[in-house]
């Protein structure tokens, strides 16, 4: 089955992963800007990173027939540095019109601090002024519930928010309902230990239905499986769900959400 991985950090993966993804049916991916594994020292570090996301990675992906898209921001972890964050936000317009850029992301909260919330709102303001889609990172582990509620407060508190153009990612059992009930798109991340499993993601699809739900691997620097989405597909089939339902979550929904960006020129095979 052809599928999208709507959240994967290919800058942290070897080219062998592109081969594996292509062999397992990945036809497109979206790569949000994220933490490099260390705190970058200047806006020029982000300029080089944005070049990597908008020039090198789509070229690397294309060698394996995968269409690569990306998002731009300063991530929640580095957002604690407000001065640097504002420089990066000021630079984003230089790159946002590049062909594979889908919007602003993955913005969000990490430890739910005032600085993180301030920069989140400034990213939102940029996104709304430019008319861009928004991809949101919700915090890890013990911070996730409070952080997700804070994010929803900021989103719903801004009259410009179009909920059909916002994807709240890394939802789990205690955050999926408020996100979906508020009308946003929701992403389930299949990542060992700190996030969700394919089985639990299937449970949530069964409980809440496929509407506005996506799954992703968020493959990154840590132990993670870029082939997590195929594992979800396999588990859904094992449970007897039909191909149309599975395809809706792993292909139709990402395609529908990303189509909100005028630069999304996906060529189905």
């Amino acid at each position, binding site marked *: 089955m052809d599928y999208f991985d709507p959240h994967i950090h290919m800058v942290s993966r070897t080219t062998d992963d592109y081969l594996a993804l292509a062999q397992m049916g990945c036809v497109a991916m979206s790569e949000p800007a994220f933490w490099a594994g260390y705190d970058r020292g200047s806006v020029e570090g982000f300029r080089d990173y944005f070049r990597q996301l908008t020039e090198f990675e789509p070229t690397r992906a294309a060698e394996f027939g995968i269409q690569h898209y990306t998002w731009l921001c300063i991530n929640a972890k580095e957002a604690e540095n407000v001065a640097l964050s504002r420089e990066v936000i000021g630079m984003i317009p230089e790159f946002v019109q590049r062909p594979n850029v889908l919007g602003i992301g993955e913005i969000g909260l990490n430890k739910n601090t*005032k600085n993180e919330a301030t920069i989140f709102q400034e990213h939102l303001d940029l996104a709304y002024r430019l008319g861009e889609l928004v991809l949101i990172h919700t915090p890890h582990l013990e911070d996730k519930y409070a952080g997700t*509620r804070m994010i929803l407060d900021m989103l719903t508190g801004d009259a410009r928010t179009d909920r059909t153009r916002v994807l709240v990612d890394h939802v789990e059992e205690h955050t999926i309902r408020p996100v979906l009930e508020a009308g946003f798109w929701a992403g389930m991340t299949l990542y060992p230990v700190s996030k969700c499993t394919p089985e639990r993601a299937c449970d949530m699809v069964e409980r809440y239905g496929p509407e506005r739900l996506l799954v992703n691997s968020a493959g990154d620097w840590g132990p993670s499986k870029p082939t997590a989405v195929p594992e979800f597909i396999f588990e859904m089939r094992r449970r007897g769900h039909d191909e149309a339902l599975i395809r809706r979550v792993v292909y139709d929904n990402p395609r529908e959400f990303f189509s909100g960006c005028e630069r999304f020129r996906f060529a189905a095979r």
Partner: protein
Amino acid sequence: MPAPPRKTTSPQTAKRSAEAVLDRDFLIIRAKLLEVAASLDRLAAATDPPADAERIAKIRQAIESLLDDGADHAETLQQIFSLPYDADWQERFGLGGSGD
């Protein structure tokens, strides 16, 4: 235009009976419970008690929650391991607006 709020009903209910779930998952459940049991044994064998008893208390609370009837064990367990949400956070941060 914002999307209308969505009802969280369950249109895609599991197509399996409890018997079918157990046939498939019993050994997996057993294995995962065994991992938890073994972890508790490691804690019991530890030479010194933890300085922070809170994590032990959360583990105990989580295990006890699994014995309740109902279909929300995963969500309940997630909440046990979550920090609380403060509805007045925006006021506390001086960012304006208010929580719901």
